[in-house]
Structures are given as C-alpha cells and as structure tokens.
C-alpha cells in the first residue's frame, strides 16, 4: 500500500538554511547537507528546498547546494524558488534534484509547465499553489478567473500578489498542462499552527488526479492525521514545526502509524 509522506521544507538563502534548528546536535545548523542528513535519519520521506534569495546570482549557489545534498542524501529532493525557464529546471535537475517546484513562474507563463513536463516528465514538475480564501465576491478575468462560486484565490510572489485566479481552476489547469503533483499552501492557515485548511486541501485533492501535498498550519499530531484523512492529502509538509523541534518527523510518523495511516517505518 502506498504510504503517506511526511516532508520537511527548508528555506535556503545564500547557500544556508534559515530558521530554527538550533536544537539539533549538528556540526553546523545552517548547513543544508547536515540538515538534510538529519531529516533523512529522522524518517523524512522527501525533502523540499526553497530558495528564498531574491538576487539573480542565487541560482549558482542553489545549484551547488543541490549538488552537495544529492551526493549525500538518497531520498527524493524537490527544489523551488526563482525557477523561470526550462533551462533553469534542467540545471537544477542535473545538479541532482528529482523535482522542481514552480509557483509564480507557472502562473505568469504556464508554458513552463507543459515544456518542462514534455522534456523531463510530469513526475518532476510540481506546481506550488499559494491559496487564500476569497473574502468578498471578486470576479476575475478569463477562463481561470474568480467567479461567484470561487472560494480560494491564487497568490504569487511569495504570497504578496493576488492574481484573480481561482485556485481550483488553476490546480486543474496545472495538471492538464503536465504537473505531476500539487504543493498546496493555505495562506490563511500558514504560520498559525491551528491545522491545515482541510476544506481547501480536500477540494483540490478531489479536483485533480495527481498527488497533493498539504502545507501550512501544522501545529500538532492531529493536524497531520486530519490533512490525510479529512483533507485527503497524499503528503503533509511542515517547516518551522520540525525546525524548532516542536514535533519531530519521527514522532509524527509514529503517531500516524498508531492511527492506522500507512507510513514508511523510520
């Protein structure tokens, strides 16, 4: 039986992992390789690295990070942040990433999804969607635009820019174009540790026939269970919760296993 995946997300800038992790007995808590190896030992099923550097010379630093991590840690590695072209994707994959996560670039130029999928396979194109609940009845333009039934809007540029695009329509469109997986972040839940947005997660998971990774809002064990059972997520992602050691990946997996959710043994 396919197991549910538990995935830590690491933010990288200037070749260093930012946030937390001071609790970990590491030689260097900001070193991507040390941290990746730590999470691997902890039972992480995959790793997501997000390059949060804005500058244009960040790409080469990130490529070097991916080279180093993939030479030491042998679980799937997804890399996102600032990838704008098929050539960017190729470089990151050649450095050792298994998948790339596309967010803003996919919204601005959706051909990057179809071209990337045609060249490297659907399995390595993850479309990351930052979704926020629609407050007032806003109506967007075009066939992906918000309409009176829309419940979530897609944001880009790290959650700063509303797009007028309906998140469910965008998820379906991304998959139609060749995305093999959706990394879904609820902007309403993110950072609050009150649980994943189960309605959003379930709606997207039922709208597409590819795996959905739930992200944003994990704070305790039950949240992971709910994301998988009620949100119908195929994988659950968290960042600060793991980095600050509030919960460990090992504990989360043991909890899920105890609740009858299939997970890979640590």
């Amino acid at each position, binding site marked *: 039986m*396919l*197991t549910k995946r538990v995935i830590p997300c690491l933010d990288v800038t200037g070749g260093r992992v930012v946030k937390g992790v001071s609790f970990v007995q590491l030689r260097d808590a900001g070193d991507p390789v040390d941290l990746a190896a730590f999470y691997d030992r902890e039972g992480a099923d995959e790793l997501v690295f997000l390059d949060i550097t804005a500058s244009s010379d960040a790409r080469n630093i990130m490529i070097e990070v991916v080279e180093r991590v993939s030479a030491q840690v042998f679980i799937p590695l997804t890399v996102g942040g600032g990838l704008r072209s098929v050539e960017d*994707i190729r470089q990151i994959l050649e450095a050792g990433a298994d998948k790339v996560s596309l967010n803003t670039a996919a919204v601005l130029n959706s051909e990057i999804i179809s071209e990337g999928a045609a060249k490297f396979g659907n399995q390595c194109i993850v479309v990351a969607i930052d979704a926020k609940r629609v407050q007032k009845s806003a109506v967007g333009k075009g066939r992906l635009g918000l309409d009176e039934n829309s419940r979530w809007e897609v944001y880009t540029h790290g959650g700063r820019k509303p797009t007028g695009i309906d998140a469910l329509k965008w998820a379906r469109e991304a998959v139609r174009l060749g995305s093999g997986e959706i990394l879904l972040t609820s902007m309403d839940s993110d950072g609050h540790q009150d649980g994943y947005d189960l309605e959003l997660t379930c709606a997207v998971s039922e709208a597409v*026939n590819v795996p959905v990774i739930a992200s944003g809002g994990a704070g305790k064990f039950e949240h992971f269970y709910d994301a998988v059972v009620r949100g119908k997520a195929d994988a659950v992602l968290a960042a600060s919760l793991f980095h600050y050691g509030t919960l460990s990946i090992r504990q989360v997996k043991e909890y899920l296993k105890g609740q009858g959710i299939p997970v890979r*043994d640590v």
Partner: protein
Amino acid sequence: MISIIDYGAGNLRSVAKAVAKLGYQAEVTDDPKKVLAADVVILPGVGAAGDTMDSLRKLGLVEPIKQVIAENRPFLGICLGVQVLLTATEESGGYDCLDIIPGTVRLLPPDLKVPHMGWNQVKQKMAHPVFDGIPDDANFYFVHSYYVDPSDRSIVAGETDYGISFCSMVIKDNLMATQFHPEKSGEVGLRLLDNFLRLSLGEDSSWEC
C-alpha cells in the same frame, strides 16, 4: 568499469551519485563502445518511454544493450530502464520497446492517482542474494504511471500493491530491473544497489542462489 547509460534525460546523475557513495567508480556515458566494454551496465530512467526509445535508437545504443544482456553481463534497469526492456508499451499511443523481456508495459488503473508517487512496499517473490539485509515488504520510492507485465512470471522478483498487484522488480540471470528507484530509496535502496554491485563485481561474481 560500471557504465551508466546517459540518453539525455534530466536527472540520471542521482544514480551515479549513489554508486559513488557506495565506493564504486562509474562512468556516465552515451558511447556505445564504452557500454559494450563495461563490466556492469546501468540503464536509469525518467520521463517518457517513447522519447527514451527514440534517444536509444538515435545514439546507437539498442544493439549494445541487447548484446550486453545476451552475454549475461550484469545489467541493472531502473524505472523506465525496466520498461524499455519489454516488448512494447501502451505509453505514447503504443510503442515498440527492446523486446528483451517478453511482455507489455501497461497504464496503472485509472481509479487511483497517477503517477503512483511515493514509498510503497516490495514483496519479495524469490530468494536471492540481492535481497541480503533487506526485509520483505521494505518500502522503496516509486514514481511512475505505467508498470511492466512480463509474460514469464518466474522472473518476477518483487511485487507491489497499488490498486492492483504489479511486478515491481525482475531478475533473470544477471539482469536485475526495478520499477522503483533504489537510488532514491534511502538506506534499503543503497543496500540493494550495493548487493547488486557486489554480486556483479565481487569475487563471488556468480549470481547463483
């Protein structure tokens, strides 16, 4: 020398990195001569079967792969690297493959999410030294939409459940091929690769059980 066949897909180097981590030297190559001269050949794979077959043909690698396997030299196929060994695939509207293993590559049933992506158990269907130190039903990492359905069931070394029970690993003489990615399956994956390479290159180079 271990040759890892490069036919232009994106992330073939993770296999090379895993082999290097295990302390072996490997060469990533698209040169038919080097493939023919290798002691061990690895055919990794991601992407589409049709493109892969086209690339193998264009690079003149079809005959070298057939020859290496016919000579019973150790050969490891991974993911698409197992699929292209069969007679034909349903992918890309139907495509002829290498026909080294009689059988068909079929699309996973549509009632489950495709691709089958993540960690799933491999039920060992034969006793073989390549499984040394690997528990039955150990989890390996899968990413695929199609599966191999070989006509000769005696070569099925592993089976995995995803809606249906499908063949996730074949062993035939010195040929081993996996639908999952040992190079991305953490400790058990590295162990399987290590067992394969040790059996292939070590003193006990016979694969007899």
